[in-house]
């Protein structure tokens, strides 16, 4: 039984850049986590270290207290379905879909062949085609099939919906929920399509500049995030009092995104308009640079 995946002080240094600057993160079994962050924030690096596919410069990753690096017992319980890139000359590009799925069935000890076959049918994928010849959407579908059919306790999907059309994305969210309801597996999903997936995540992890900016229950987070607007004087008073982000001026008017502390609240009044914000709005407010 795997219950807790824990990263401690992960640093990943590339030649000229620290991709991760001391990340600590604990994931509990049985939740759907969403990981969001800008391009280059360090999401994929972190996910591949979490799944023991690359080694951190320093720091450790433990599954139930056991170091995961080169530890077969731990690796058996973690699946990281990477984004496939048709242009890369390395990796599985020259093989056919059929062969890639067969490799996955050997690599993942809990592989569910029946599920993989039914998903191939559902997504209408030609398994005789080479990976390098697949469209962007088809590539996404193959990574989704591998992730779901791996049946790994901790399953990590790196941008599973990039390249999928809106109908296929909806289909994926429902497939994921079906699998989650049935098994209670843990999923970590990174995505740039925040608006759609926000309601799917029990917890959201925001990665920014090689650090974890925030990890919190999505509902709790949104319940303390509001956009306020009104006269510059009124809003300035609020900005001094509360944690404010993304302040914007227009003439005498001012707006800001406010992150209240738990339990703090403010009502709309005649002078100050208080509006709820979406996870996407909040993300832009927190991570967007002026």
């Amino acid at each position, binding site marked *: 039984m795997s219950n807790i995946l824990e990263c401690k002080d992960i640093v990943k240094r590339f030649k000229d850049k620290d991709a991760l600057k001391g990340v600590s993160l604990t994931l509990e079994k049985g939740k*759907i986590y969403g990981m969001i962050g800008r391009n280059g924030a360090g999401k994929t690096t972190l996910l591949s270290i979490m799944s023991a596919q690359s080694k951190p410069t320093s720091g450790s990753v433990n599954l139930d207290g056991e170091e995961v690096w080169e530890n077969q017992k731990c690796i058996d319980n973690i699946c990281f379905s990477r984004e496939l890139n048709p242009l890369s000359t390395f990796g599985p590009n020259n093989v056919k879909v059929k062969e890639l799925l067969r490799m996955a069935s050997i690599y993942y000890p809990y592989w569910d062949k029946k599920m993989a076959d039914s998903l191939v049918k559902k997504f209408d994928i030609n398994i005789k085609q080479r990976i390098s010849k697949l469209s962007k959407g088809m590539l996404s579908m193959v990574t989704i099939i591998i992730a779901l059919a791996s049946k790994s306790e901790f399953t990590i999907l790196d941008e599973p919906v990039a390249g999928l059309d809106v109908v296929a994305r*909806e289909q994926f*969210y*429902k497939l994921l*929920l*079906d699998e*989650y*309801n049935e098994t209670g597996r843990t999923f970590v999903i990174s995505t740039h399509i925040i608006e*759609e997936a926000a*309601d*799917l*995540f*029990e917890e959201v992890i925001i990665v920014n500049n090689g650090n974890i900016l925030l990890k919190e229950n*999505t*509902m709790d987070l*949104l*319940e303390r995030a509001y956009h306020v607007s009104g006269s510059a004087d009124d809003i300035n008073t609020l900005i001094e009092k509360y944690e404010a982000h993304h302040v914007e001026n227009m003439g005498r008017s001012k707006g800001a995104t406010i992150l209240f502390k738990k339990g703090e609240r403010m009502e709309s*009044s*005649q002078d100050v308009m208080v509006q*709820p914000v*979406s996870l996407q709005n909040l993300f832009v407010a927190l991570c967007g640079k002026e």
Partner: protein
Amino acid sequence: MNEILTQEKSIYIQISEMIERDILRDIILEEEKVPSTNEIAKLYAINPATAAKGVNILVDRGVLYKKRGIGMFVAKGAKEMIKEKRKEDFYDNYVKKLLLEASNIGITKEELVRMIEGSQGEI
């Protein structure tokens, strides 16, 4: 159920309000089973914990009750309960906003009363 979710309110609140509306409109009857949290989660592509939170608000208020191993059911007298609660909330949800907007644009109390009395509305 089957309404479209909006950005204006927390999703779990929208879920609980939707179930209430269905009970008020006799789409779900008293002593009948309401959709499971997994069904609701899948319909809206939301986390089952969110759907459960919406359902549990109604359980806490006695509108729904749990039959172990079967699911959630609408309690007897749920319709009355919902109406009572909405009456209680009427001042906060409607009257307060009405008064705020009235004062914003300078409608006096007398004018407001005259409008309500003269309205050809349903009351």
